[in-house]
């Protein structure tokens, strides 16, 4: 099983060169892969029919207990067959549909990567692996929806799908981790085997909500339904594959997979019944506003997905039986319908169903496929869709209000089928926007084959019964369940409801020509509910990010620095106070010598004067006073090397500053300023100074660790032959540091030189040149 997934990824890698070499036939050749996979997965069916489950385990990150566990049971088989089987038809179809497209080599790798990821989702038995594959389907889907990336529409839809499903998946990962914590393992089959443990846990509610968030976003359930119709911006092969048959069903798959463990509680039922029911009704209502064939089909997909979610929520054996049959039937009719809509678009140039009539003569085979799939979609005999819908009705007998919703939606489904599979083809006279030509075989082989399968299984549903449907229902129920499938159930209540559905449906068909324009006129521009919320959230996110960036990373240097200094002071101060670092500090100033007090006072006065200075010369002089004061402190406290260096540096700084200042405009340093801004800066500065003073007092109140100093004192002469310990440390023990320091100075000097030279060149251009040579400020004074 692992090999089959990896094989699909491998073909995805090889696909671009293959597609380039094969040209127009690429679709036919590449379809060998999914066709082979279909056969491979079908080979499991006899064993499944015998009640077996096939496990495969490969260690991945054994240290973390993560393994690649794969498991083929009934549910996995249904999905794997749908993914590979419909994938075969889609690959062939895409070759014809996108023939001549420059970006086609980019398409196949994405399609096959998606296929591989999707197979991974349904075959894995490990929650973490499932999550990884799940995200891969979101990502590949993003690129596939945005395939026509030159259109803004396409990009926005792709992003929307990614954001909605990606956010849900994040919640889902949280749910998975909770499940893993509760059960002590990430093996899905083990987790769901113990519902009592899961449902007794205090984390049960959170786990259900989080996992459901992932599943419901992926399966486009209300209120997250809006991304799916928008995803119709994708090329039709993608819509037919991802957004009808496979990816959107990943959510359904997850719910079905988790049902034996998490299901059966009022929370589970309430959540899924609400989401499914709301989706069905919302989709049915919104479908009435559409006349684009692909969007119509998208809403019918929403109805189907809502039905599946509902049935999983109800969870009775009858409901689950209906769920697995309906699931399979839906894929067999929805994919062909999408491909037909795409073929019509491809050959006739529009998807607007009101602008198309009489296509049947030009595209007879396409029409045949459309009719076969359409009858199934409408839930009419003798198709598998009929079996599925009857079972769904029966499964909802115990919840009449949900049943009523489904009947109403099924009537709309019938309307959609008539609009997509009948109206454009029927009629004697051809009405199309441009000259129509018959579709090439690649565009009708796939849909026709799948639609025929739906017909075959409709006549003989028993073919599916032992190998697929019973094992699948057993996997969802958690225990074996024996049932038989028939096309004809006899004159049952469900049949009566089907007749009622058809009557309402044809009523809608008759009313549609007047109803549709009226509804569009009234509600066409209304944007409310989840769509508006999504747009608002996205806009709000951008606005907050912009405002935050403006504030925190202002273009204005002063503002920028104020934020940084304030944040640093506030953070350090808060941590310091909270940890009690400043508690009990002695504040008594003790002077042993009066001249020291005088020196310190001079430094303080120098600082005050530098801060208050209006004139540049006063400021420079004050800075000099502070610097020399510090140098004198170094002298007093036994640091002659520091004192010498400080004297040199102070002198040089004054010289450079003077050189620079003569070229700057004269005038006051203190431009008239807003008092509030000044007070703010003052407050932050005083707090910052107090913080540093406090920190320093706190540090010096602890005993000093002199280990390193003692080492240098002891080793200075014997090992380095130097009597000045500071110098030995610099040039010997920490020689590399000093080399770095020299490098820094060299870089600074080069920068200074380059800047001054450019300035001089410019001035020489402008005037005759002042000839004021720049001093070279390089060279370490130490």
């Amino acid at each position, binding site marked *: 099983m692992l090999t089959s997934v990896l094989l699909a990824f491998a073909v995805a890698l090889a696909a671009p060169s293959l597609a380039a070499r094969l040209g127009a036939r690429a679709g036919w050749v590449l379809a060998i892969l999914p066709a082979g996979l279909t056969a491979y997965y079908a080979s499991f069916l006899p064993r499944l029919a015998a009640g077996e489950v096939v496990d495969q385990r490969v260690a991945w990150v054994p240290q973390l207990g993560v393994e690649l566990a794969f498991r083929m049971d009934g549910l996995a088989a249904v999905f794997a067959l749908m993914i590979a089987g419909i994938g075969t038809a889609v690959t062939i179809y895409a070759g014809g549909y996108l023939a001549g497209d420059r970006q086609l080599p980019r398409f196949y790798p994405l399609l096959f990567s998606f296929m591989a990821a999707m197979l991974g989702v349904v075959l894995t038995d490990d929650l973490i692996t499932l999550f990884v594959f799940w995200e891969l389907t979101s990502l590949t889907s993003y690129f596939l929806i945005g395939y026509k990336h*030159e259109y803004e529409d396409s990009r926005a839809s792709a992003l929307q799908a990614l954001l909605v499903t990606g956010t849900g998946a994040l919640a889902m990962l949280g749910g998975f981790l909770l499940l893993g914590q509760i059960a002590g393992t990430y093996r899905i089959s083990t987790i769901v085997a113990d519902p009592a443990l899961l449902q007794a846990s205090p984390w049960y509610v959170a786990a259900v909500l989080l996992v459901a968030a992932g599943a419901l976003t992926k399966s486009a359930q209300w209120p997250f339904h809006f991304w799916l119709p928008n995803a119709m911006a994708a090329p039709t092969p993608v819509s037919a594959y991802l957004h009808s048959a496979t990816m959107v069903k990943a959510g359904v798959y997850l719910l079905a997979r988790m049902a034996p463990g998490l299901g059966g509680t009022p929370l589970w039922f309430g959540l899924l019944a609400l989401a499914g029911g709301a989706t069905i009704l919302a989709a049915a209502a919104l479908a009435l506003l559409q006349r684009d064939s692909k969007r119509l089909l998208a809403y019918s997909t929403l109805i189907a997905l809502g039905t599946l979610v509902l049935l999983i929520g109800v969870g009775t054996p009858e409901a689950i039986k209906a769920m697995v049959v309906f699931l399979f039937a839906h894929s067999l009719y929805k994919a062909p319908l999408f491909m037909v809509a795409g073929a019509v678009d491809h050959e006739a140039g529009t998807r607007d169903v009101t602008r198309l009539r009489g296509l049947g003569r030009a595209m007879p085979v396409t029409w045949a496929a459309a009719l076969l799939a359409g009858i199934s979609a409408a839930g009419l005999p003798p198709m598998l869709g009929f079996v599925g819908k009857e079972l769904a009705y029966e499964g909802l007998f115990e919840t009449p209000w949900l049943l009523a919703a489904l009947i109403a939606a099924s009537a709309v489904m019938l309307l959609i089928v008539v609009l997509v599979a009948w109206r454009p083809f029927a009629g004697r006279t051809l009405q199309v926007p441009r000259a129509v030509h018959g579709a090439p075989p690649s565009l009708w082989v796939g849909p026709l084959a799948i639609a025929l399968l739906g017909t075959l299984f409709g006549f003989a549903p028993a073919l599916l019964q032992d190998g697929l449907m019973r094992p699948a229902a057993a996997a969802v129920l958690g225990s074996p369940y024996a049932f038989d499938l028939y096309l004809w159930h006899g004159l049952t209540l469900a049949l009566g409801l089907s007749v009622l559905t058809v009557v309402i449906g044809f009523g809608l068909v008759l009313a549609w020509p007047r109803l549709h324009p009226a509804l569009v006129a009234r509600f066409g521009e209304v944007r409310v509910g989840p769509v508006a919320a999504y747009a608002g959230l996205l806009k709000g996110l951008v606005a907050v990010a912009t405002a935050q960036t403006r504030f925190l990373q202002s273009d204005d240097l002063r503002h920028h620095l104020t934020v940084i200094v304030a944040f640093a002071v506030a953070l350090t101060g808060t941590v310091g106070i909270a940890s009690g670092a400043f508690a009990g500090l002695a504040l008594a100033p003790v002077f042993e010598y009066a001249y020291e007090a005088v020196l310190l006072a001079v*430094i303080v006065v120098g600082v005050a004067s530098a801060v208050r200075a209006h004139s540049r010369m006063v400021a420079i002089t004050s*800075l000099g006073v502070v610097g020399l004061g510090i140098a004198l402190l170094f002298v007093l406290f036994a640091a002659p090397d*520091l004192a010498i260096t400080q004297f040199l540096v102070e002198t040089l700084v004054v010289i450079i500053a003077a050189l620079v200042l003569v070229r700057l405009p004269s005038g006051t340093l203190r431009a008239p300023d807003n008092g509030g801004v000044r007070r703010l800066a003052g407050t932050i500065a005083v707090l910052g100074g107090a913080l540093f003073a406090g920190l320093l*007092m706190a540090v010096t109140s602890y005993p000093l660790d002199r280990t390193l100093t003692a080492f240098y*004192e002891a080793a200075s002469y014997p090992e380095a032959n130097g009597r000045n310990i500071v110098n030995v440390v610099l040039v010997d023990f920490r020689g590399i540091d000093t080399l770095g320091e020299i490098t820094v100075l060299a870089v600074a000097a080069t920068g200074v030189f380059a800047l001054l030279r450019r300035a001089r060149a410019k*001035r020489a251009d402008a005037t005759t040149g002042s000839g004021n040579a720049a001093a070279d400020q390089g060279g370490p004074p130490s």
Partner: protein
Amino acid sequence: MEVVLALVVGVIIAGALYLVMQRNLLRFVFGLILLSGGVNLLLFTAGRPIRGAPPLVPYGLSEPAGAVANALPQALILTAIVIGFGLTAFALVLLLRAYERLGTLSTDELTARVAEPRPIADRGDGEVAP
């Protein structure tokens, strides 16, 4: 004595921070100069300065006789002074160039004159507007 030195360090750093947050770029550079002096003194104080005994090994001995000043912070500060000087020199010259190019030393006017690159307009047809 450390307490007094700590207070002086606080005063120097407060002055430096105040200058750094000013509109005039020259005052910003003055703040930078003050800050590097204040931080050096901070390091020095943290090393517990003592009076009159520089970290030297007398002739005839292989180790200093008795307690001498802490050599480790002194070595660090020596590096810091020199690096601080490089920074100051570079900042001053950069400031000079900024003034020559833009004609102002006020941070808000600098912002206005260094216009941000215009956002790339997307016309939705895949072509990037010039």
